[in-house]
């Protein structure tokens, strides 16, 4: 079943790129305390077990890179994704140090795994601590990454 019209599913694929990295990180940091034990593919989760990370799509922007655009435009896509680390449930201890350590682990891992296939991490946004996440009823921290991909759209 097709989930989008057309050839490319660039927005969701960018998320899957980061989810794949987070799953690799989960395996790589199994001996670390605190560690991420679960990775979820969306922020909206009613059954989230902790400590967890979740990845979701925030926004996408695109720029025209082709010299002969717009007749045969080559487009750069910049997809902003949010990575959340969840350390406790709403109403419980919002451990800023534990959150900061998890964010630090995520940052270290992503910074050394910037590229996979046609996707690369183009930029890192701010990381914020002491967040409350309504969608999963949890507390923790959040950081933002921008993923870049170039697509040469065949014209109809």
């Amino acid at each position, binding site marked *: 079943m097709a989930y989008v019209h057309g050839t490319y599913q660039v927005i969701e694929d960018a998320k899957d790129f980061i989810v794949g990295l987070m799953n690799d990180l989960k395996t790589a940091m199994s001996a670390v305390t605190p560690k991420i034990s679960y990775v979820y593919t969306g922020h909206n*989760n*009613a*059954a989230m*077990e902790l400590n967890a990370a979740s990845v979701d799509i925030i926004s996408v922007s695109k720029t025209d890179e082709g010299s002969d655009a717009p007749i045969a435009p080559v487009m750069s896509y910049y997809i902003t994704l949010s990575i959340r680390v969840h350390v406790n*449930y709403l109403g*419980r201890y919002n451990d800023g140090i534990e959150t900061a350590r998890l964010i630090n682990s995520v940052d270290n891992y992503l910074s050394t795994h910037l590229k996979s296939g046609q996707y690369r991490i183009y930029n890192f946004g701010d990381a914020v601590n002491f967040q409350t996440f309504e969608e*999963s*009823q949890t507390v923790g921290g959040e950081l933002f990454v921008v993923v870049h991909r170039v697509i040469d759209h065949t014209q109809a």
Partner: protein
Amino acid sequence: MSTKKTILDNLETALRAIKKSGGYNTDIADVKQFGLAMDVQMENKPAVAIVEMPERAVAEDDTNIQFVMPISLVAIMTDRSGLRDKITLFVDDIKKVVCAASLGDNCLDINLTGLGDMAYTSTEGDARVPIMVDIRYYAAKAGF
């Protein structure tokens, strides 16, 4: 099968473990579940009444709903000798169980939220302290 009922049964089992031989201050005599606070009557004491209160659906995704189920655990003790000290120790025993309880796969969290006033009942001849906890759990939409 009921996810909620399983969690409450697991809580009852955990509370029944309050014994001096297990490092607690009290030998518990009984634990029972009640739907209404006004129904709480216990023959054997010290006892804990697990009283359900209105639960809330707090989050939802494509397959699950997350609930917060507030519970009042009523500590009941009838020993007139040194009653105040004994019920304080009994309440601490219950808090200790609550903070360590594992209530099954669907239970995400159990959170001690507060304690109510101690009440002495002349008709029953006992002292009661309500201990408020929030149980956070999820159930599949396909069946509760």
